[in-house]
């Protein structure tokens, strides 16, 4: 989708780099800001709404990578299904309306430390590669290719993930089941 738009604009004298720079940093910045608000918000429902916006931002970043299918699936699964269930669970929680007091205690310090440690590990991984910029193939990856590779090259991981989801589903039912006396 984005690919086509860029093509259209560059056909009309606006270079691709300019469009990407003008929009990408805005979207990426907003995504990070919303992610920050998810953890800093005092109201759990507000956190959920910010998380929706963050996930939408991530879907936009996928568009910059020309991964349209992934962007669509990101919105469908994460916003349409997972966040809907999150919010549903929040609504069923009886004391969700209580706002947390904003104070700096040991728990916050520990989680900030953990987050920074994970960030440091990611930074190390990112630094491992030299990241040579490559030119994009003119045609975005087709759905047929994605489907075929899911069924052949990635067949085993795909099946393992479905098994994992099934196990989680059964587990949820077992936990949620009311004991009959």
């Amino acid at each position, binding site marked *: *989708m984005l690919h086509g738009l860029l093509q259209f604009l560059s056909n009309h004298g606006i270079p691709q780099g300019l469009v990407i720079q003008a929009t990408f940093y805005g979207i990426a910045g907003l995504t990070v800001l919303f992610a920050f608000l998810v953890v800093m918000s005092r109201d759990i429902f507000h956190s959920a709404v910010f998380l*929706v916006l963050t996930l939408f931002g991530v879907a936009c970043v996928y568009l910059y990578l020309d991964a349209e299918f992934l962007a669509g699936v990101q*919105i469908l699964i994460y916003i349409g299904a997972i966040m809907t269930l999150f*919010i*549903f669970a929040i609504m069923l929680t009886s004391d969700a309306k209580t706002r947390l007091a904003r104070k700096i205690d040991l728990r916050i310090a520990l989680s900030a430390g953990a987050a920074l440690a994970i960030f440091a590990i990611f930074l190390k991984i990112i630094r491992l590669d030299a990241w040579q910029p490559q030119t994009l193939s003119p045609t975005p990856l087709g759905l047929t290719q994605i489907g075929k590779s899911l069924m052949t090259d990635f067949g085993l991981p795909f099946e393992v993930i479905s098994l994992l989801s099934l196990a989680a589903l059964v587990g949820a039912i077992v936990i949620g089941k009311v004991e009959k006396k």
Partner: protein
Amino acid sequence: MFTFLNLIFMVMAGVMVLGFIAVSAMFLIWWERKVSAHIQNRYGPMRVGWHGALQSVADVIKLLLKEDIRPTKADAWVWWLAPFFAVVPSVMAFVVIPFSKELIPRDLNIGVLYIMAITSVCVIGIFMAGWGSNNKYSLLGGMRAAAQIISYELPLILSMITVVMVANSLSMQKIVEAQSRCWFIFHPNLALAGLIYIIAATAEVNRTPFDIPEAESELVAGFHTEYSGMKFAMFFLGEYTNVFIVSAIATTLFLGGWKGPLLPPIAWFLIKTYGIITFLMWVRWTFPRLRVDQLMGFAWKFLTPVSFLNLAIVGLLLLK
């Protein structure tokens, strides 16, 4: 060269879509009142214009002039943002609706997936309205909407996937092209998918017999009880836009889209789409509302297994 003519053309296309949405919603509200009235042996609106045709225009002016009341205990920005979340995704869905061969804002190669994804965001708006209003009826309405939309989204998507499997593409135009010889609703492998789609779509847009999120007799008006003036109008606009979208998808996926003899393609598309909408209205005004447990039981114990079975059978038939 980038000319201002192109820019003007792009802006005009956007304005055309927005204008179409507004006029279509106004027409549908009048049409719904007329259809319901004639089903119930009465006339409906008759005073403003020919057979009340301008009644919706008068109503829009009234809504624009009404005071915007904000409940003091509301969760301010969640309450304020909710109508936008309810309307914007359904407007965005118009990007891939093919009115004719040329008249489509953009024929994305992930068309069907895009529609599934973008329309699934609407429910967040209903949640936000239900929660932000800080009112028990709104909250109950929001929760019912959530439960219902999650449950019926599965059969809806599964029935759309069977069409994608037969047409071999996610692009809306290619799906229309695949129906040049035979509409998919008459295709032996897809007739059941069409039936599942129309049932699940009725539930997705919260219409009777599946309108428990806003059941008037139990919940006042459900999630939009606390909204007035233009914000209420936006929920109304979103609702009728969603009705149009699901009917336009039904037209494209099952009724051959804009294809048809003699008349221009756009006329065929609109005739088919408004025909489906009229069918949905007919259903709405003749069936009683389901109970919550009946609704959920129907979705999980009947519709979802049947659509999985249908998907598997169509897959097997395609393999041979």
